[in-house]
């Protein structure tokens, strides 16, 4: 289908179903139950999953295929966000021009940075991209937000003010980001018994965009162009000796992944019309590197998993506090309850960084291929077990587990 082989088609369909049904999948626990804390099916987090998924898919096109480790990709995301908010300020709250411009600007910006940075390889390339991104961050945070020339609004973040021109803003169109009148914030809440599921317009816009770019990523991975990029990764020198100039290919990959980042940034601003400078900081660039490696570098689905993993921890674990713990373990005797809460306390709430750090280490140590490898191993394990139980079944009758 759509020019994909069978395996890729089924992957695309699975991802499509998962994103389509995310409001159900991410809200497995009834509202008001003790486990509801682990529900992630609210609009903001679902949007974030998908947006960072796009960011990581794009990053993987560069890093997973060519092996070039960029440490400055957050700059493109930030530039994308800024351009989107500027479109809101100047034109109107319609998200289409905003997202379009963010992709274009990020593409141009990445062309510039990529052209310079790709003159070097290995860690020298990483540091060059890091340096460009940190410079962008520092300038956006302070110099470019001075009252005389306020491009970024600095620490506060660029936002839309009532006195902005918004020349195309119609009289009746909503006063917040919308798609031809459909506000991104519009949410339909479906109550089924004790459960409640949110269907958010913004989320579905992001989801559709992600499906499109995911499809594009598959096509790139399977194309001769993708093959060329892989060749760069395995042995660039040999490629050069055969008379091929690899630079146009790597630069194209860099710009494509920069545009993915810009798209993610634009969507982020479309979901929430504020662009903060922290988006460009090295920690943000590091985050997407972590997402990709954690999920599984060079795999199609890995980066999306990695993005979901990190965002889930950031948003869910940081909100668990001692009160919540006490309510969970209220069934235990008092002394024991306090002891359990005391033991878990360092890992939740303000300790969510600690949990995340430990999980990073565990994943890298035991699953060198990232979460994707974990999934494969589990699959294999099940398969083996199934065949094993089949064998035993044929031998003697034992109750199935």
């Amino acid at each position, binding site marked *: 289908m759509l020019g994909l082989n069978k395996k890729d088609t089924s992957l695309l369909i699975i991802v499509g179903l998962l994103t389509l049904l995310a409001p159900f999948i991410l809200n497995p626990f009834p509202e008001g139950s003790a486990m509801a804390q682990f529900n992630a099916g609210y609009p903001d987090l679902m949007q974030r999953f998908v947006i960072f998924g796009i960011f990581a898919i794009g990053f993987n096109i560069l*890093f997973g295929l060519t*092996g070039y*480790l960029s440490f400055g990709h957050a700059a493109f995301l930030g530039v994308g966000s800024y351009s989107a908010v500027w479109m809101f300020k100047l034109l109107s709250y319609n998200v289409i021009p905003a997202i379009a411009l963010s992709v274009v600007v990020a593409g141009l910006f990445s062309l510039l940075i990529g052209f*310079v940075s790709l*003159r*070097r*390889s*290995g*860690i*020298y390339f990483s*540091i*060059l991209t*890091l*340096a*460009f991104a*940190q*410079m962008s961050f*520092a*300038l956006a*945070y*302070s*110099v470019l937000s*001075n009252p005389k020339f306020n491009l970024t609004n600095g620490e506060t973040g660029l936002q839309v003010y009532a006195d902005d021109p918004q020349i195309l803003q119609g009289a009746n169109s909503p006063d917040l980001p919308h798609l031809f009148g459909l506000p991104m914030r519009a949410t339909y809440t479906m109550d089924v018994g004790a459960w409640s599921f949110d269907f958010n317009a913004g989320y579905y816009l992001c989801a559709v965009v992600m499906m499109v770019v995911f499809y594009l990523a598959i096509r790139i991975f399977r194309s001769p162009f993708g093959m060329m990029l892989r060749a760069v990764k395995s042995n*660039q020198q040999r490629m050069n000796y055969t008379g091929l100039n690899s630079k146009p290919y790597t630069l194209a990959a860099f710009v494509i992944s920069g545009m993915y980042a810009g798209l993610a940034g634009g969507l982020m601003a479309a979901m929430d019309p504020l662009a903060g400078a922290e988006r460009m900081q*090295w920690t943000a660039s*590091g985050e997407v*590197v*972590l997402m990709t*490696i*954690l999920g599984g*570098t060079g795999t199609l689905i890995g980066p999306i998993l990695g993005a979901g993993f990190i965002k889930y921890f950031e948003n869910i674990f940081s909100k668990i506090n001692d009160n919540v713990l006490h309510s969970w373990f209220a069934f235990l005797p008092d002394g024991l309850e306090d002891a359990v809460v005391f033991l878990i306390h*360092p890992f939740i709430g303000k*300790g969510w*960084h*600690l949990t*995340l*750090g*430990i*999980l*990073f*280490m565990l994943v*890298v*140590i035991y699953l*060198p291929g990232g979460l994707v490898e974990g999934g494969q191993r589990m699959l294999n394990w099940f398969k083996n077990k199934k065949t094993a139980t089949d064998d035993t079944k044929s031998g003697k009758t034992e109750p199935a587990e």
Partner: protein
Amino acid sequence: MDAILLQILNGLDKGSAYALIALGLTLIFGTLGVVNFAHGALFMIGAFCAVTLQKLMNLSFEVVDESQQDFLGNPLKVETPYVEAWFGPEVGAAIIDWSVPLAILFAIPIMLLVGYVMERGLIKYFYKRPHADQILVTFGLAIVLQEIVKYFFGANPIQTPPPDALSGSIDLGVMVGFDPNAIIYPIWRLVYFGFAVAIIGAVFSFLQFTTFGMVVRAGMADRETVGLLGINIDRRFTIMFGIAAAVAGLAGVMYGPLNPPNYHMGMDFLVLSFVVVVVGGMGSLPGAVLAGFLLGILESFASTTWATTTIPGINQIIIYLVAIIVLLTRPRGLMGRKGVMEE
């Protein structure tokens, strides 16, 4: 003129910290081929060795003093450090006063141990893994280490003052014939610079003039051949990891009095020190030191009013700007070797 001298001093001082951290990073990279993102955390642990020692020195017993009140109106508990009770108030106070320099002795074994445990317990398994995995696992370790420190010491900075004799500042300008007050410089910053030079000197002479160092250098150049000669190069590299950790730790101990340690100080230095290492050239020890001092001095000059009025915001970006220029003109940094970390 005096302003220029002053900024050179500042630059050397900043550069000392950069150079020490970059030196350790390069030692680890050069010997083990591992990109250690937890190196900033080692610097931070060093600083907290000083904090811990200071806390130990100040361990106190409480005596309830009915004549004074605390903030709730209850009788005040007066605390007297054990050290003062044991050695008498004067000697005790002197020991507490000198707790930062004393912490050097305290930190060396701890840092060697931390380095040893880290290498044997974790890094060892990552020699054959891609650099990306090394980065991820050491970054995870850095987060874990800093969160542990935060759990025990809080997020607020903790003062570790220098000994009274070495606090305050001296008028260097008068000594070389400037007007009084022209070049005033804090004593501890001079101490820090001297300390850094001594450590750097010690590391270089260790590598240059001892048999152990010779073997390590040979191993850095060609690990396989040295191994084939029947030398247990791995064990020596483990020791080098410990030494690198100790260098970072000592840099941290002595840094405390300059700026009070907090749990994220390692992360603040991490990115910078990588830039320093790369500008110096991957795998080159002299390069790391040179780049450390160079970037320190440039950073100081960029923060002068003259520089910031000429190019607004130059003080924010100078380090990165220099890194870009150096890497574009010298492909492997100032003194990098060919073929290291280029694939």
